C-alpha cells in the first residue's frame, strides 16, 4: 500500500515562498523603521535649530527694546542734543498759541468720523510754535 508523495514538494515551495516573503517584509520593515527613526531625528534636530533661532531672535528683540528705551530716554536725548550742538531749547510758555475749535470744526479734522473724540470735556487743542504761526499771520 503506497501513498502519493507529491504533497511535500509543493509544500516546500510554499514554505520557501513564505519565508522569503517574511524576510522581505522584515527587511523592508526594518529599513522603514530605520528611515522613520532617521526622519524623527532629523525633524527633532530641525525643531531644535528653529528653537535656537527663535531664542536668538528673541534675545535680539530684547536687546533692541532696551536699546530703543535707552535712546528714547530724555536724559540721553538732552545729552545728544548738547553733544551735537543742536541748540535745542524747550518752547517757553509764551511761545504757545492755543486755538479752541468748536465741535463741528473738530469733526472735519478726522478722515474717519467714528474716530473723532467724543468727550465734551476734552476740547481739541492744537499748539503751534510762534515761528509756525508767523507765516499764517502774514497770510491774513
Amino acid at each position: 500500500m503506497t501513498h502519493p508523495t507529491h504533497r511535500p514538494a509543493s509544500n516546500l515551495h510554499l514554505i520557501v515562498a513564505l519565508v522569503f516573503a517574511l524576510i522581505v517584509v522584515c527587511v523592508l520593515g526594518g529599513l522603514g523603521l530605520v528611515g522613520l527613526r532617521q526622519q524623527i531625528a532629523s525633524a527633532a534636530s530641525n525643531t531644535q535649530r528653529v528653537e535656537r533661532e527663535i531664542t536668538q531672535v528673541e534675545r535680539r528683540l530684547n536687546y533692541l527694546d532696551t536699546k530703543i528705551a535707552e535712546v528714547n530716554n530724555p536724559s540721553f536725548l538732552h545729552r545728544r542734543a548738547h553733544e551735537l550742538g543742536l541748540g535745542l531749547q524747550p518752547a517757553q510758555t509764551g511761545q504757545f498759541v492755543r486755538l479752541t475749535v468748536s465741535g463741528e470744526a473738530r469733526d472735519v479734522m478726522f478722515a474717519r468720523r467714528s474716530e473723532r473724540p467724543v468727550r465734551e470735556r476734552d476740547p481739541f487743542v492744537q499748539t503751534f510754535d510762534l515761528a509756525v504761526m508767523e507765516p499764517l499771520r502774514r497770510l491774513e
Partner: protein
Amino acid sequence: MKAAVFQSWRLILIGFAGCAAFGAIFWQLGQLHLVRGPALAASAEDARRSLVPLEARRGDIRDSRGVLLAGTRPHVVVGIDPAFFRDDDLPKLPELARILGLDTNEVKRAATTRYRSEGGRPIRWVRLGQVDDATYDAALALRVRGFYGTRGFERHYPAESLAAQILGFINREGVAVMGVEQQMDFYLRGQPGWRISESDGRRRELAAFRVREAPPVEGFNVVLTIDSVVQSMVEAEIRALAETFSPDGISIIVTEARSGAVLAMANYPTFDPNRFWEFPLENQRNRAVTDSLEPGSTFKIVPVAAALEERLISPETLIHCSLPVVQYAGRSVRLPSDVRELGEIPLTTVVARSSNRGAAMIGMMLGSRRLHDYSALFGFGSRTNWPLGGEIPGRLHPVERWDGLTISRLPAGYAVSATPLQIHMATATLANGGLRPQPYLLSRVVDRTGANIMHFEPRAPVRVVSEETARTMADLLAKVVSPEGTARRAALPGMRVAGKTGTSRKIIDGRYSRTDHFASFTGFFPAEAPEFVITVIVDNPRSSGVGFGGVVAAPAFRNIAEGLVRYFAIEAPRPERELARFP
C-alpha cells in the same frame, strides 16, 4: 577501555568547565539584570537623561506711556581658554581686541599666559568682558580657537538713574532688593520651565528623545503711573539744585491733583541701578518716604484749614501777630517769633507772609484736641499707604504728651515730624477739594501682549475739609505766590499758583541749629482747577544768605511747573487766553 574512561573523564571535565563558564555568565547576567539591574538602569538613565532648566524672562517695568524703565537684556560673557588657543591665531588677536573694545596687549596676554604665576596651575579660562550678541557673533566669525562665551540675561535700566529709588534693582544673586522690583517680584519674575531629554556622550541634547517639557512662563510687565518725561524734568531740576546749593539731600514729588497718581518722585543723592555697587548704600534710600523732617511753615495749611472748616475764622479775620506772650488754658504761652513785626493783619496776610505768631494764634483758637485731630486727618503721624513699603509714619504726639509749648509750636510746623510725601499729600488734600488722596503708583500688571492681568485703582480718598474750605485755602495759598507773599519766585506767567513755603531749622545734637535747615515749597496749579501738586524739599541748602524755601525751593517748583505746562499743554482757565475761536 582505558581510553574510553579517559575520554569520559575529559568530557566530564570539559562539560563541567563549560557549565561553570555558562553558570558564571548566567550568574553575572542574573546579578546585572535582577540584583543590580534597577540601580544600573537608573544610573544609565541618569547619565543619558538630563533635566534642562528653562529660565523665565523677567517682566519689564514701564512708565505710564509704555516707556521701558527696567528690562531684561541679553548679554554674552566672553573669554579665552589659553589651553586651546593656538599660536596660528595670534594675527587675529588685534581684530578680536578691536571688536571687543579691548587693548590688543591685554587680549594677547590672556590668550598666551597658560599657567598661573602662583602655583603654576594651568589657566582654563580668562574673562575678557561682557558684550552683546552681535559683537559676540562678529568675534566668533574670526574663528579664534579657545575663544568662546556664555549667553545669559541681565537686568538693565535703560534710563540709568531715572527713578532709581522707585524701581529698585536686582542684586548679583538675582534677588530683587527694593522698590517696584521687590514689591512686584511675584508678578515680574515669571515661572521657570524645565525639559527632560536625553543627551549624548558630549552632553549635547538629543532632541528626538525629549520626554517631557514644561515651557517657562514669562514674567508680567508692571506699568507705573510715573511719566518718564516728568521724572526726567524733576531729576534735571534736582541736579541743578544740587549744583547750586550743595545740599545734603533733596526730595521732589509730583502727583496728579485728583487721583494722587505719582508722576515723578526723585531724590538726591541717587544711584544707577545698573552699577548699584559703586554707590553708597544711603543713596538707595527713597528719602521722600524714609526720612522725616519738621515741616515748618508748610504745616500752616493745617491749622488755617481747620479753623476755616470750624468757622472760627474767615479770610478777612484780623489776627494779632505782635504779641510775644498770650494766655492759653490759664497759663502764659510764649509765641514763636516772626522775621518782622506784622501787627494786626487779616488771615490772608498771615498766610501770605507766613506768620508764625499768626499760625500759633489760630492754633490756640482751635485748641489742642482739634489741632491734633485735624493734623491726623491731614495724614500727619500715619503712613500714607505708599505702595512700595519702607515708609515711616512720622511723629505726631497725642495731646496727652504735649508740653506747654506744643500748642504754639505745632501750628508753625514744629513739634511734629513728617516725610516729604506726608507734606505733599496734605497739600494734595486742598488741591483735591478737601479729599486727601492716597499715593497711586502701581497702575497695571499686563502680560506680553498688553492684556490686563491686574488693574489697580486709586484708593478711596479721605474727606478732611469741605470743598468750600479747600477752595478758600487755594485762594489764600495763591496769595503766597504773589508779590506780597513769600513765594513770588514760584509764580507762573498767566496762571495762578497756590502753595506754601517752609523753612525749618534742623535739630542737631538735640538743639535747633542756627545754620542747618530745610527749605521747602509745596503747591499746586492752576489754583482754580488744580491739575498737579508739586513738593520740593531741600535738606540744608548752602547759599550766601539764608536758604529760605521761597528762595531755594520755590524757583525749582516754578521750573518744574513750567515744564508740566508745556508737556501737558495745560491752559489756564481764563477765557482771555484764547487767541482765536472758530465757529
